[in-house]
């Protein structure tokens, strides 16, 4: 990887390419990399792609309390959302609860948050989990916080669109219920992805290398987005984007 950008900046650029030209993106509390990517896309689309940092002091348009994001998703007004997982399996099932046998888990994590709902209602859910290991990408999750696919008698306009990790980008085919490798990041290989993935996935004959960040986008990211994310992710803004917010509420 070039010295010209950080790994976080690389991932931001990867995610930005997965975002639509217009619509509403919502970003949860603990997601600074997707948050920065979404704000960058807003900048690149001249505001046609709108961004809500749902727990942010700034860039948070919601005015009707904690349920408004979920209501808006149910109304079909949220086009992009980001989810992760302690474990993710080959059917895009997400586990945010813990590992081991529920309820007496070996390792307990915070919980499912809104995943079990947003995954059903948001058309383009981007899975973001930097750590690419067999510990994360398992054959079968220990607990399904949110299922990747649903039977036809369950109304489901939303679901998984793509997966971004430190190694690669995958897409998800909802009809087949399978991931497909779309590109491998510079310096990594298809074999490395396979070795570190505990589930089977489709691999095309030729797998492209994930493009590096466009320099002009890096400039925008560094010049404008740090200030934007500082209100919600002050640590991240300072550490990654070099923006130091003034101490204030």
């Amino acid at each position, binding site marked *: 990887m070039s010295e010209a950008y950080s790994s976080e900046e690389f991932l931001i650029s990867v995610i930005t390419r997965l975002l639509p030209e217009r619509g509403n993106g919502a970003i949860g509390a603990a997601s600074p990399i997707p948050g920065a990517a979404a704000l960058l896309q807003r900048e690149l689309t001249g505001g046609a792609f709108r961004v809500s940092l749902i727990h942010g002091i700034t860039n948070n348009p919601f005015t009707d309390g*904690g*349920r408004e994001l979920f209501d808006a998703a149910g109304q079909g007004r949220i086009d992009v959302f980001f989810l992760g997982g302690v474990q993710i399996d080959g059917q895009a099932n997400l586990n945010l609860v813990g590992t081991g046998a529920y309820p007496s888990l070996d390792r307990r994590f915070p919980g499912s948050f809104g995943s079990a709902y947003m995954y059903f209602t948001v058309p383009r859910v981007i899975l973001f989990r930097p750590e690419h290991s067999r510990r994360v990408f398992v054959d079968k999750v220990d607990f399904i916080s949110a299922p990747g696919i649903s039977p036809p008698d369950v109304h489901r306009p939303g679901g998984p669109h793509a997966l971004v990790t430190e190694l690669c980008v995958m897409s998800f085919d909802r009809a087949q219920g399978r991931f497909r490798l779309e590109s491998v990041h510079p310096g990594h290989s298809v074999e490395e992805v396979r070795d570190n993935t505990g589930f089977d996935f489709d691999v095309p004959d030729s797998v492209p290398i994930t493009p590096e960040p466009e320099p002009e986008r890096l400039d925008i990211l560094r010049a404008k987005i740090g200030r934007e994310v500082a209100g919600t992710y002050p640590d991240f803004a300072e550490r990654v984007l070099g923006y130091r917010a003034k101490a204030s509420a």
Partner: protein
Amino acid sequence: MTIPDVDALAEQVPDGALLALPPDYSFVPMALIRALIRRGVKDLHVLAVPISGMAADLLIGAGCVRLMEAAAVSLGEAGLAPSFTRAVQDGSLKMRDSTCPAIHTALQASEKGVPFMPLGGIIGSDIVKYRDDWKVVDDPMGAGNGKILLLPAIKPDVALVHAPLADKYGNVWVGKRHELFTIAHAAKTTLATYEEIHDGDLTADPVLAAGTIPAMYISATAQVREGAKPLGLAGCYPIDMDHIRAYAKEARSQEGFDAYLKREVLGRQAEAAS
């Protein structure tokens, strides 16, 4: 009539209560949480609306909680909630997993006085498998809309909130944090601490009324300046992340938690109004 303080409010939370807490970003009455621990409250069923952090973790570590119901318990950027994580892993805490909109919806059912409310999505999540109070049914309208999840109403015994403003009539201003409206409407009663007293009737002010919970939902209020600290209060003071991070580290062991508790909770006998 004496002016109620935070400890007087804590007396009004009975042991065994179903206690609703706002999320860390939404006006958590931390001084009242500490007073509850000092009063030795027991067997609480804590409902996070819909997630919690410091407040739930302190109550759990101090042994006040019988059942935790939440979409998540986490210290956010400071990482896992140490007492919650330990207590679930060692089996001493019963956890009722939920998901954010399910908690909002179950409170809306109580707000409307209906026994249940439907919610889209969620079917196929293991959360449903372990919730025998939830029910998946075929569209009861018979309109061919497929399966849908029905959630029973949740009616908290007591809701707690810390507000930037209150008035002498017992009205409480929470701005756009309308989940606190829903909690107060759904709960049997609400106890509120607040930063500053508003001179006048908050419900009569055309601008402030839009963010005011009327007194009819509030059974007691007490002034506690900086009453949300170490959490933040939007517009007043930011979250003290250094404090939260230090807590996350110290409370990784029960001994460390106990030291924190003694120093920061039990040691603060009276949190005065000023």
